[in-house]
């Protein structure tokens, strides 16, 4: 295949990836995330686990060590099938805490310590950078295969040159789609979708090659198996249990803790439910990827020269067989494996570096200079990520250039696995054990990392020497065991002997107690446990509702009666219904304590306590509402009492009116009958006629007063507001009142000058009040000689105060409060002729004028004070009435 065609095809493929990523990002931005969030996309994105090291290296591994390569696939398979619940929990906790990387997770769990995060980032960078370099190398090598095999005379850029192009292109892709924006959930739809597509290419390429090898080069499966069986005796192919155990463990850990794996498995997961598909689909993918590894390795050994690099069998086999298109497809598969790994790994590393190294540094430097600006921060984070991506890529390329040789890099996959595995004890412990603390995490991870550096990493790059091991024991397995054992022991020991700080304790509780909302773990039991549940449900909902619910659940299970089986579905539905009434945690705890048989944990209790607290607050709120209600009720009661009193008053008033009307009418009627008596003397006739006349006048006055009062009380009184002079008004009032008991001559004491007070009021109404008060004085003042004193003062606000005081015996204290009431004169022995409405009318008039009339006790005689504003307030409806 021409090298130009290869390059062109490769570029076209890259363009396709850019297009897919771009389209997915756009769809996500427009909110069309349905297909992006499909579990299949998620599952395929997990295949970033199969890097170039796996794609090319697995065959090389198999040709050297036989079946041992399978551990790389078996470890993740065991984790995904066996520790499926653990992964769900990990994803749930991580989503709950908005975790952005493995370093962030560890830091969040252990008191949000950034030093811990920075340290984990360091491990990730040290472990992953050579691994990225390995990918660059694999791409470079695969190019070389084509270049050397077909067009040796082309002046090809050296291997380093190809790698540089690849690194640059990948950096561009990663920056474009990895740092487009700063989504809160740190998800990258474009990248993930492109990777999912690459996963398909990867798998197709490998399966196509496998089919070609088994049916094209060998003669079908039977022949293939026979060829494999021949190899079983090879010294390298002997199974080493110690290595198997170590490798299974390390690869199982790697599928979770490797930065790129954590990125796709946890950070990019929409929610934990993705795992229900990925739980079986990802192992299936791995199985498909591993199916033809051994056949390819065996056929490569048989058909290719002994000095051919087994790591490149997948390319050289089809190329040597003239299958150029197949070779190209395989090349694209390997290219996909390498690029997807590099892109995701770089994003993960860049996130960690910017979040845990650059940001704290920037914040520290910045605090000294200026204030905070969110936009500024955002810009910084994005730039820090871009810078980190470039740096990771550059360092990887430099690493590749510096180490150069293939042998140093070949083992990098496993080395990286074991390095990151050092985080595992802290992670698992943090998720499962509330007692785990930061000192333990630091100590464990630190010691493990140091041991890994000394015994695995440095020897792998040619510095220092491998650990001296007991004879017969595999050095790698021993180093893995040693580092992880020391790590775990230190973690547990330091955690036990250290006290977690409050933040840590809180985070620990949150991590450890993330309760699965749906209990799949509940096992179906017999119906002997249902009865207590029914009793409990009755207590919560009442008998009828509970029976109805249980009956319908039993009917759903095809049972008659009201006792359904304890199926998970029933328990879940019961818990949900109960949660609606008593809160989720309480419902959960109640069902568990009754049916589950499991004990209440501290965190359950804490959640119950939280709900109890909430219930208490609710009760408090209710109590407040009740108090409020009681107050309203009391106010209503008071209003009702007032109304009743008003009604009683009204009845009394009507009774009084009746009395006041009937009394003069009785005289009128009786005397008009008497007048018809034939033998009346003229004197009697005249006297009786006068009585009739007077009593009729009294009736008229009463009716006038009643009408006046009702108009004044209703606020409908027509006021004629004009300027008035108090001196004139008092003069007229005195003159008018003199008609009452004209025989009594009053000495009137006045201060004429003070009376010249101009005021704006209804002069006629004010005159009515003055006449009434003065007339009362003339009627009731029993002093001899009678003296009436009238004093006028200007008030501070420009109004007037008129005191009218006589020198009589005044009004007894007990009656002072009653004199302004209607008909208060009724039981008055003096019976001065009126109906007893005079002062009540005065009071209403003064209210209408915006002033008041009060009784002034302590003046010896009767004393009234009239207060007037400078002008009366304008009633709202005054204008309307006038209009």
């Amino acid at each position, binding site marked *: 295949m021409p090298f130009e065609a290869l390059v062109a095809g490769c570029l076209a493929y890259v363009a396709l990836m850019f297009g897919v990523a771009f389209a997915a990002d756009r769809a996500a931005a427009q909110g069309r995330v349905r297909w992006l969030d499909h579990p299949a996309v998620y599952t395929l994105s997990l295949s970033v686990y199969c890097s170039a090291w796996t794609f090319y290296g697995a065959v090389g591994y198999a040709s050297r060590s036989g079946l041992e390569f399978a551990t790389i696939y078996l470890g993740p398979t065991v984790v995904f099938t066996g520790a499926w619940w653990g992964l769900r929990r990990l994803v749930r906790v991580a989503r709950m805490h908005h975790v952005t990387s493995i370093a962030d997770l560890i830091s969040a769990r252990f008191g949000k310590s950034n030093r811990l995060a920075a340290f984990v980032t360091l491990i990730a960078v040290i472990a992953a950078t050579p691994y990225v370099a390995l990918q660059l190398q694999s791409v470079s090598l695969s190019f070389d295969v084509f270049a050397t095999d077909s067009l040796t005379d082309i002046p090809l850029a050296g291997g380093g040159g190809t790698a540089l192009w690849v690194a640059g292109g990948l950096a561009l892709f990663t920056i474009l789609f990895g740092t487009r924006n700063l989504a809160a959930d740190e998800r990258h739809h474009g990248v993930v979708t492109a990777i999912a597509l690459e996963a398909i290419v990867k798998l197709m390429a490998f399966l196509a090659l496998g089919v070609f090898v088994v049916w094209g080069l060998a003669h079908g499966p039977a022949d293939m198996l026979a060829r494999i069986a021949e190899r079983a005796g090879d010294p390298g192919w002997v199974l080493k249990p110690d290595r198997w155990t170590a490798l299974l463990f390390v690869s199982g850990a790697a599928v979770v803790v490797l930065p790129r794996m954590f990125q796709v498995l946890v950070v990019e997961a929409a929610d934990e439910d993705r795992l229900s598909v990925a739980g079986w689909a990802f192992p299936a993918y791995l199985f498909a990827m591993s199916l033809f590894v051994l056949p390819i390795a065996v056929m490569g050994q048989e058909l290719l020269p002994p000095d051919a690099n087994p790591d490149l069998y997948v390319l050289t086999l089809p190329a040597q067989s003239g299958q150029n298109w197949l070779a190209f497809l395989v090349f694209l598969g390997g290219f996909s494996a390498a690029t997807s790994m590099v892109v995701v790994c770089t994003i993960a590393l860049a996130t960690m570096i910017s979040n845990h190294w650059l940001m704290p540094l920037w914040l520290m430097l910045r605090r000294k200079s200026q204030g905070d600006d969110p936009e500024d921060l955002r810009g910084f984070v994005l730039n820090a990520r871009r810078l980190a991506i470039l740096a990771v890529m550059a360092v990887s390329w430099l690493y590749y250039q510096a180490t150069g040789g293939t042998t140093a890099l070949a083992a990098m996959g496993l080395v990286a696995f074991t390095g990151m595995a050092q985080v595992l004890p802290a992670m698992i412990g943090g998720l499962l054990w509330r007692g785990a603390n930061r000192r333990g995490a630091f100590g464990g991870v630190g010691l493990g990392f140091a041991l890994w550096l000394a015994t695995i990493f440095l020897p792998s790059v040619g510095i220092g020497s491998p650990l001296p091991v007991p004879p017969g024991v595999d050095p790698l397995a021993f180093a893995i065991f040693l580092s992880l054992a020391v790590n775990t022991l230190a973690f547990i020991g330091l955690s036990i002997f250290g006290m977690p700080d409050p933040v840590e304790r809180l985070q620990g509780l949150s991590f450890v107690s993330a309760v699965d909302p749906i209990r799949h773990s509940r096992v179906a039991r017999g119906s002997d446990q249902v009865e207590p549940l029914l009793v409990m449900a009755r207590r919560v909902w009442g008998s009828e509702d509970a029976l109805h619910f249980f009956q319908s659940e039993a009917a759903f299970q095809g049972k008659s009666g009201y006792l359904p089986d304890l199926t998970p579905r029933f328990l879940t539905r019961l818990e949900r219904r109960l949660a609606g009434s008593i809160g989720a945690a309480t419902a959960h705890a109640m069902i568990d304590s009754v049916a589950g048989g499991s004990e209440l944990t501290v965190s359950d209790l804490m959640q119950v306590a939280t709900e109890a607290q909430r219930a208490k607050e609710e009760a408090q709120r209710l109590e407040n509402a009740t108090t409020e209600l009681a107050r309203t009720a009391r106010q209503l009661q008071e209003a009702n009492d007032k109304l009743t009193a008003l009604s009683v008053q009204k009845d009394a008033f009507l009774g009084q009116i009746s009395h006041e009307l009937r009394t003069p009418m009785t005289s009128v009627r009786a005397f008009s*009958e008497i007048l018809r008596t034939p033998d009346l003397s003229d004197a009697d006739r005249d006297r009786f006629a006068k009585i009739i006349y007077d009593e009729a006048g009294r009736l008229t006055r009463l009716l006038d007063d009643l009408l006046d009062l009702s108009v004044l009380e209703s606020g409908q009184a027509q006021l004629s507001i004009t300027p008035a002079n108090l001196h004139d008004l008092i003069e007229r009032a005195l003159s008018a009142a003199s008609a009452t008991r004209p025989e009594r001559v009053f000495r009137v004491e006045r201060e004429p000058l003070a009376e010249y007070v101009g005021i704006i009021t209804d002069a006629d109404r004010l005159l009515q009040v003055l006449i009434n008060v003065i007339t009362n004085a003339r009627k009731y003042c029993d002093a001899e000689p009678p003296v009436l004193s009238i004093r006028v003062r200007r008030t501070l606000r420009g109004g007037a105060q008129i005191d009218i005081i006589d020198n009589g015996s005044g009004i007894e204290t007990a009656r002072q409060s009653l004199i302004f009431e209607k008909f208060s004169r009724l039981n008055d022995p003096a019976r001065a002729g009126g109906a007893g409405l005079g002062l009540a009318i005065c009071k209403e008039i003064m209210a209408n004028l915006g002033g008041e009339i009060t009784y002034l006790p302590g003046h010896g005689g009767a004393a009234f004070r009239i207060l007037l504003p400078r002008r009366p307030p304008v009633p709202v409806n005054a204008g309307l009435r006038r209009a």
Partner: protein
Amino acid sequence: MLDILMIEDEPNIAEAVRFILTREGWQVELHSDGLGGIEAIRGAKPRLVILDVMLPHRSGTEILAELRGDHDASLAATPVLMLTARGQASLHLPQADAVLAKPFANDDLRAMVRRMLN
């Protein structure tokens, strides 16, 4: 022996009643205040008492109750005619022998008094 003792605070009504009953030949004594009313009744021992319900200082019903509780059995049994201006509602006065609402027809007053005196 006094025929009729009347306690009424409205002078015009009192005069009308006295005029009407005197012309029938009965002897009528007037009082205008509730306070001295019971003493007057004890002193005069009239054959009939006419009481206004609403009186200053002491209401007619109070005087009636006191009269009915008197230890002089014959005095306590004196027939009492109550006059009321409170309308039909106050006509139910169990201790009174008769109640007359104001305003009244003179004939009714005469007939009622005649019946009570005979």
